[in-house]
């Protein structure tokens, strides 16, 4: 990096990371009071949620959390973290694209 060059969008990225930390602390406390707490899934949820607080997007990724949590408790068991982690990220990525499609549909209309 040259002397006069700055890392572009550093402020946005730092803001994003701050959102992750705040959300993680806040939600960890909140969800741990209930019986739906899973640290790994919550972490994946927070990484995606910090992108946008749009209600439709939050519903989508909360759905992903619910599906993965259901899989963890009822089907796979807590030992298979690899599959849960990976599936959760995959589902969230797909939901992210569904949200983009919804967003562009509105933009074009």
């Amino acid at each position: 990096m040259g002397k006069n060059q700055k890392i572009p969008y550093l402020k946005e990225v730092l803001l994003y990371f701050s959102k992750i930390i705040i959300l993680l602390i806040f939600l960890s406390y909140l969800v741990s009071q209930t019986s739906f707490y899973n640290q790994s899934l919550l972490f994946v949820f927070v990484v995606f949620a910090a992108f946008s607080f749009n209600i439709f997007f939050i519903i989508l990724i909360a759905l992903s959390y619910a599906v993965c949590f259901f899989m963890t408790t009822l089907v796979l068991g807590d030992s298979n973290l690899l599959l849960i982690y990976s599936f959760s990220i995959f589902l969230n990525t797909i939901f992210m694209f569904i949200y983009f499609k919804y967003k562009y549909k509105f933009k074009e209309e």
Partner: protein
Amino acid sequence: MSKRVLIKIILGLLAIIPFIYLLNYLNISDFIKNTPISKLIVFWIFFDFIYIFYRAFLLVLNKRRLHSKEHPFVSILIPAYNEEICIEKTLNSCLFQTYPNFEIIVINDGSVDKTLEVVNSFIKRQEYYLQNKKINLIIIDKPNQGKAAALNSGKDKANGDFLVTIDADSHLSFHAVEKIMNYFSSEEIGAVAGNIVAIYKDSILGYLQKIEYEMGIYFIRASQSFFGNVLVTPGALSAYRKSAIKNFEEGTLTEDFDSSVRILEKGYKIILAPDAICYTQVPLGTSDLIRQRIRWQEGSLEVFSKHSFHRKGFFVSLEWFFLLLFGFYPLMAKFISFFAIPLFIISGDYINLLHFIILFLSYSVFSYLILFSIVAHYSHDKKSLLAVPLYVIYFNTIVLYSVLVAQILIFKGNNRTWGKIKRYHI
């Protein structure tokens, strides 16, 4: 693809045995068993390998395409915005093409520098040659509306049934138009993507981009070309059948990606012309590179979101699916894996941190060695293998950062047009 490359792929597969042995020796297997985040890395290692071998498999099957010997009239479109430094070289390379039947259209998209004066003085100097060779050089001067709008203006004025689009900061090899036009061997081919070579000017960052471009051409696009599903026709050099492209989509960040998807939607094929070479300038500063990559990533996310991929035939849908599965998903997985580093530091778990770094670096270097050796077979640049560690540590971090920023920006819904990088004389 020759048998030699196939042997290299098999050797690459066999090389995984000492790699696993090394990981075992370093007690990484215990680390993988005990640390959840490491399992995620193992999972994307698995995904990356499937991706590499899927592409390599298509390369093995790839065949030489029939060549057309006809010379239909071609319109070369050069959209330009503030390109006073490079446009003369671009025009020179277009003018002295071996292809016999073409016109050149320069679209000045409201440049605020001396682009227009440079083009006018070029025409004056080459007047005799232009008349002698009966080459029509048209200038369109319009207010600034973005690259896609500039291309549309050029398309409206074009007399040819085929359009060759070139970036004003790029220059062609003298056979480029002839070579690229050879690939329009049947009516079903709607567009042909050229081979883009990065001019790196002894810069390490430039050299890494040159290797990346070569991977894009010889590995990804060459394998996509097998089914005629090249997803991106690069803005630097592409040829289009005029009837296949209605308009270049305005208001998008990557009009080249968008237009190729529209062509595929119409049922046309898009193939690669590896022998049609175009030299292009690449950003030589990290900051410029990050900005360019953010625009590309934002553009691909935008195109991916705008188009439905289930209506374009099985293999196009498959490419889209792979783009999601192997393009975005492992990046998100990698990004989430990186959160492990501060977690290890906070918890004082330095042994696992070391294991994490060893696992990440050794795997990345290993997989890129396989990739680079396949690409070096085509580019004849064996010294690129030495650049693997730098590529993994430096270049991949830039790309990962750009993907992250692109996602943040696309959620915010930013709109931008021409992506400008610092130009230099070549």
